[in-house]
């Protein structure tokens, strides 16, 4: 009986954690798609990149996890700005740019995964980050590492901040205005191109954050990059492209699905089901579940 309860508790905590991380990454992908019309197929590579660099900082240079994460987040904002100006800015005014962006990010995926196999995968098979803090707390009868509790807290706080930002802060409202109606936003004096830049940086940064949180809580290998991309796209499509609420809700659902499925069989089955759900929604209700 105890074993079963423990299993349930660990599944719940895994579900909560994976759900939050999925939600963060999917929110990042959906914001960038809804606002700029940029479907980022390389989101999984970004996800893994932050974890890999942080791992490099902690294992080779002796940084502690907290500092490493801050460094990575700062660097990632710079990287996003570089990508934006070098690659994506050129197509801002092209009407059918979503398919070109999709192809470009597929190419980017190949480049990044190639670079990773030539570098990081020569140095290690598995990657993870040392815990932020030590110790174990008892939640009722269930033990949980303080690290995991902290990661959970950071994840959900970030989600909350993101949600509030988009709903109430002027920048967030501008992003939503551009998403809903680019022409109308232009008429209201919104500088659409700089909103594009901001939303790209914002969206990418939460993906990097998601990667860091994952690396803090689990150890991973390079194959999760592709899996994460599929999962994030599936969440975005099922939730509705551009709907952050959809990303949050469906992200949580998929996170729990993954946690439950992992108890019985290989996680690939979960991936199969995400692909299937995505296909179903595309064919039946392409606007997803949360968009009008």
């Amino acid at each position, binding site marked *: 009986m105890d074993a079963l309860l423990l299993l349930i508790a660990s599944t719940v905590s895994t579900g909560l954690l994976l759900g939050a991380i999925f939600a963060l990454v999917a929110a990042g992908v959906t914001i960038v798609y809804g606002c700029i019309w940029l479907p980022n197929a390389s989101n999984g590579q970004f996800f893994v990149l932050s974890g890999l660099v942080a791992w490099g900082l902690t294992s080779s240079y002796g940084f502690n996890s907290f500092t490493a994460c801050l460094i990575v987040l700062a660097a990632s904002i710079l990287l996003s700005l570089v990508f934006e100006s070098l690659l994506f800015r050129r197509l801002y005014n092209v009407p059918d740019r979503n*398919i070109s962006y999709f192809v470009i990010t597929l190419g*980017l995926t190949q*480049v990044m995964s*190639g670079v990773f196999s*030539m570098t990081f995968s020569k140095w290690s098979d598995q990657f993870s980050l040392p815990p932020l803090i030590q110790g174990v707390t008892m939640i009722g009868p269930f033990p949980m590492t303080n690290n995991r509790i902290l990661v959970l807290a950071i994840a959900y706080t970030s989600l909350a901040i993101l949600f509030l930002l988009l709903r109430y802060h002027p920048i967030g409202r501008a992003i939503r205005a551009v998403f809903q109606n680019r022409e109308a936003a232009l008429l209201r004096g919104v500088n659409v191109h700089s909103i594009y830049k901001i939303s790209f940086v914002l969206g990418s940064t939460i993906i990097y954050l998601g990667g860091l949180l994952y690396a803090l809580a689990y150890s991973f290998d390079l194959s999760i990059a592709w899996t994460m991309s599929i999962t994030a796209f599936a969440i975005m499509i099922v939730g509705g492209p551009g709907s952050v609420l959809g990303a949050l809700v469906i992200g949580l659902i998929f996170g729990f699905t993954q946690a439950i499925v992992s108890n019985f069989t290989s996680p690939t089955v979960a991936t199969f089901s995400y692909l299937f759900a995505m296909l179903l929604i*595309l*064919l039946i209700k392409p606007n997803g579940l949360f968009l009008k």
Partner: protein
Amino acid sequence: MKIKLQHVLMLVALLALPFFTQEDRFLGFILGVTLLSVFWATGMNILYGFVGLMPLMFAAISGIAAYALLYFIAQWHIDFWQALPLATLFASLIGVLLGLPSIRLKGFYFTLCSLIIQSTITLAFIFFPTFTNGDTGINQISPPLWMGEPIKGFIFECILSVLAVTGIVLAYFIYNSQLGQRFIAIREDDVLAESLGISVFLNRVIAFFIVSLYAAIGGCFYATYIGFISPRSFDVLSSLNIWLFVAFGGKATIAGPVIGALLLAPLPFLLQSLDAYKDILSGVLIVLITLLMPGGIYGAYLAWRNSKK
């Protein structure tokens, strides 16, 4: 129908190429794979360049045909030439069935659907080993027989060049036919095409079927030429590679995919020392082509030539 001199020269050159590599088996093999790539790229161009849809499940259909071919040969004790039409038809019909629901979707969503179907089929290849032997793959595939003798080497490359030329000639006829005109109308403005009495759905399905035939036939020859297949031979990267040949060479032209395949397909073999960089290089090419040269090499050449007039 205008038959341009340079096209005829190109076809003759393709037929002649195996003679140049007759003695060198390494170069001959590269040529064989390149000729297959020419055939595949020409096929994909019909959907991508002429109809305007990007079918990333192309390699999956090739894979289905290849595995079906081997299954039919092993189970029904028929030879390659009998199994070829069966496997081709089988894979093409599955291709159309899988693609059917997604044909109504707009550009990006169609591509995404195609990607999902491709990924699913690759996963199916890996996780249902009864037919496919999973990730280990199937090796020692025997080559087709002609009059009792196995077709190997130089003769096989000649056959592949005939295949490539046939594929190009067929695409040429389609391009210049009324069907081709409808494809172009649909690519340019599908709503307008529909309002002129063109059934967009039906024509897309036809295009899809034709392209699946190319994918399937190519898959069957690929399996018997290389002698070894695995799910990795027919994954997303393979589809993207063929797409790259088309985009790099120039979509919506006859010569474009040929040029693209001739230039890019040999590279992984000739630059074997740079093998690790292969993915990176092709990824960079994908990005550069999409950003800077949407018309491909041949498209850029045509534009340059037109601006001189």
